């Protein structure tokens, strides 16, 4: 099982890195500086994807081999930690962006904002997923009867308690990591907006390259938010469902509660839907070709002596 999982994961990572390499090769760059910038962006993304995939694979491998048994809290924050690594790799890539060279340099007097840079739909989706994760974590924390248990009151007044459930024991570290990832994502988008413009290219082409970097950061961020949200929800849904099904075979036999079973099943299906949506948004290519590089950059503005 683990071999198949790791093989499949490596295949996905290899495919993603191959896609990055192919994308870098096919991009039409108007000059050497643009080619250098595209290459830098591709290397940055490759390292970031490797960080993200490496973190997730290590967690899957550790869980599968039993190394992480009993380390549920650690497993819960692995996607966020891998996501933080992914974002940090992007931030480093953008902070070390190749600057202008030559003795004569020029810059356009234009405002570059994060809102004008990041694809609005993707940005909204990412922040929505982050907010949903926070809301879900708080709801699970409030619904829990203990740090990591959930209870239901039986007909005879006794309570039937089951664990593990994503209560505050898991919720607090997940909340902290989610906030860290959200702040890192916002900061990296600002770095992308402020990084040096590519010399000798039109503002449209430069904006396109920034938009591509922002899209990659947002895609990775939403993926880790979706993974964490799906994991927490699946975890919660399974426990709620088990609580509803009760323990008909045990010494303390409990009746079936169809309401709990229904809610648990719905949560599980929602978790799978979120997982699928996150994977789709992260992997499905977007049609956003580079603008025509033949556009000449105007150079008739006044120059100070």
């Amino acid at each position, binding site marked *: 099982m683990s071999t198949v999982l790791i093989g499949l994961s490596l295949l996905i990572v290899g495919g993603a890195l191959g896609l990055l390499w192919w994308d870098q090769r096919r991009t039409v760059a108007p000059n050497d500086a643009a080619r250098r910038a595209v290459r830098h962006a591709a290397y940055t993304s490759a390292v970031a994807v490797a960080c993200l995939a490496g973190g997730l694979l290590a967690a899957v491998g550790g869980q599968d081999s039993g190394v992480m048994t009993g380390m549920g809290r650690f497993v819960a924050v692995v996607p966020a930690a891998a996501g933080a690594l992914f974002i940090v790799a992007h931030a480093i890539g953008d902070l070390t962006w190749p600057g202008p060279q030559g003795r004569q340099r*020029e*810059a356009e*007097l234009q405002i570059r904002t994060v809102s004008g840079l990041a694809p609005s739909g993707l940005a909204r989706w990412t922040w929505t997923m982050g907010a949903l994760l926070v809301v879900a974590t708080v709801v699970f924390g409030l619904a829990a009867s203990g740090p990591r248990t959930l209870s239901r009151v039986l007909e005879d007044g006794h309570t039937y308690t089951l664990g593990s459930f994503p209560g505050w024991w898991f919720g607090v570290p997940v909340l902290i990591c989610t906030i860290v990832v959200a702040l890192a994502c916002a900061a990296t988008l600002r770095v992308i907006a402020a990084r040096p413009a590519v010399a000798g290219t039109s503002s449209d082409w430069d904006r396109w390259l920034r938009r591509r970097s922002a899209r990659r950061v947002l895609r990775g961020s939403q993926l880790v938010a979706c993974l964490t949200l799906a994991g927490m929800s699946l975890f919660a849904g399974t426990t709620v469902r088990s609580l509803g099904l009760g323990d008909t075979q045990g010494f303390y036999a409990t009746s079936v509660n169809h309401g709990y079973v229904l809610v648990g099943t719905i949560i599980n299906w929602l978790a799978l839907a979120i997982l699928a949506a996150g994977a789709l948004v992260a992997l499905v290519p977007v049609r956003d070709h580079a603008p025509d590089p033949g556009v000449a950059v105007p150079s008739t*503005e006044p120059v*100070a*002596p």
Partner: protein
Amino acid sequence: MSVRVRIDLDSPTPQYEQVRAQIAALVTVGDLDDGDRLPTVRALANDLGIAPGTIARAYHELEAAGLVVSRRRIGTLVTAPPRTLVTKAPRDAAAHLAALARVQGLTDQEAHDLLAAALLQHGRAAQPEFAQ
């Protein structure tokens, strides 16, 4: 808005002065309108590959001349002076000088030197009035 500033690292003119002079010229000629936002200090410094302090000084000088105003959370805004009849004649004369310099094949430096010499001949006392 698609206006650019250029700097020459080999020029004897300080970099902040090159940036200041060009933005002031763009405001005067009307390419930058009242209320237009300038890029952040860091963004413009990154684009030009120079220290942020250089751009900050240029913006500070522009602010002192009343051409821009810096507002917290908004950024640096152009506060273009109103085009009045009082400034029309000097602007026309400057435009005439620039056109003549182009026709005669003078470099920008030579044209600037000519203007500086003319200002010198008319005495330094008039300079504070121009700055306001």
